[in-house]
């Protein structure tokens, strides 16, 4: 499917800058509690398991599987025709991304995927390709 020439840029604040700086450097960083080691998604200030405010990051292996997906078709979307997917990361977190270099007919729930990075205009995003493709 066609690649978009530009995408909506993420809005970034003090709580999420570390994540997007990682993506810009082609690293998918996962937030990890420095106290108990529990991983958490979506950049949150406190560990829900042990209530620690201390955290560091762990780089994702980049391996995952498709939990669910759809074709993004709204005509106003600069990436019209993009495949949007919810990815189960090997580490146990789920993350929204796109599957690139694939047709919808190639995509299936449960399919293994691998991390890649793409830059659209001046925005870099974490993306996935079908494993082995």
């Amino acid at each position, binding site marked *: 499917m066609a690649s978009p020439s*530009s*995408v*909506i*840029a*993420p*809005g*970034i*604040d003090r*709580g*999420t800058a570390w994540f*997007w700086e990682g993506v810009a450097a082609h690293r998918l960083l996962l937030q990890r509690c420095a106290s108990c080691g529990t991983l958490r*998604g*979506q*950049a949150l200030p406190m560990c*829900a398991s042990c209530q620690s405010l201390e955290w560091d990051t762990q780089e994702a292996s980049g391996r995952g599987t498709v*939990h*669910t*997906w*759809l*074709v*993004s*078709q*709204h005509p*106003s*979307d*600069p*990436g019209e025709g*993009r495949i*949007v997917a*919810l990815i189960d990361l090997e580490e146990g977190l*789920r*993350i*929204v*991304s*796109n599957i690139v270099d694939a047709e*919808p007919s190639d995509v299936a*729930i449960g399919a293994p995927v691998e991390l890649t990075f793409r830059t659209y*205009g001046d*925005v870099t*995003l974490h993306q996935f390709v079908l494993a082995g493709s």
Partner: protein
Amino acid sequence: MSTTKSAIAGIGQTEFSKDSGRSELQLAVEAVHAALQDAGLRPADVDGMVTFVQDTNDEVAICRSIGIPELRWTSRTPFGGAGASATVQLAAAAVDSGMAECVVVYRAFNERSGRRFGQPVVGGPRPAAAIPPSMSWYLPFGLDTPAKFYALWYQRYLHQYGVTNEDLGRYVVIARQYAATNPNAWFYQRPITIDDHQASRWIAEPVLRKLDCCQESDGGVALVITSRERARDLAQPPVWIHAASESHLAAGDTMFNYFHPDIAGFPEAESLGQHLWKATGLSPSDIGVALLYENFSPVVFLMLEAFGFCGRGEAKDFIASGEISPGGSLPTNTHGGLLGEAYIHGVNNFLEGVRQLRGTAPNQVAGVEHVLVSAGRSAAILTAG
């Protein structure tokens, strides 16, 4: 335990249209005034107001216009349409606690001729300069409309239980059948066939076609809520807010839940069901009419299963066998739902629930004692009396 001592004493609305030709404030004022007239109350009797965070109408502006001298209780529910039933819960909480005696719930907007909810969150072909960090996990990847936000979730359900888009269409045909005989519905006298459904274009392939999506509507609705005791002395037969609850699970996000371990269901609605059945001692078989907030057709399937009207994965057969159709065991969205009647953010479902319990609905179901009004993350059980 989430049961209440409050009742819905009045309902009011404007016409439902695609272009109201007047301000959102006027829609709100007309709806609130109609609800007070229905209840047989005067503006001066109102001392509380509840609406959605998203509603543009200022409480005090409505008071100034209608002649309500003073409010002692206001509250607003977040979470968009998922909070539709929470408005009633907030009003009942105020009345039960004594913080207010008579609370008006309102929701009014020009959601078709003004800001359309079906349009992208940030519009146009150009990248937005800045979007909220919390939405940045979704928007850059192309999830920029409700249809897409929700379809990503529904797709997992369709996959897990072998539900097809044609199965979804069978619900849509039923909703439009009810709407066709409801003069209040936008799609009055305009039923569709399954072929019409299957010929409508994809909105979020391979999950949602155009006819799977709720309408965008202009209109206003209002409810008057007071104590059961007082309601018995008013103009209409009271409708008891038997029980009401919200459920917002930590795995969820603002509008949807991508992160719960099992998203081939509706975890919040399942929790609501368990809670409300326990609170009331009722069971699914006691419900005469179900009014299930359907921004998109699949959510009806998810809610039928979550509340235990059928088992997981069985909704397509439950619907296909006529259980939610006229004459079925659980007539559902008997006004045509948000697909067929109008999208007044789900509060119009309460008006239909009240009509069914008063015995005045266009598609009246015989012998209804209990109605479930569910917005997915908030729900209420209404009972006659």
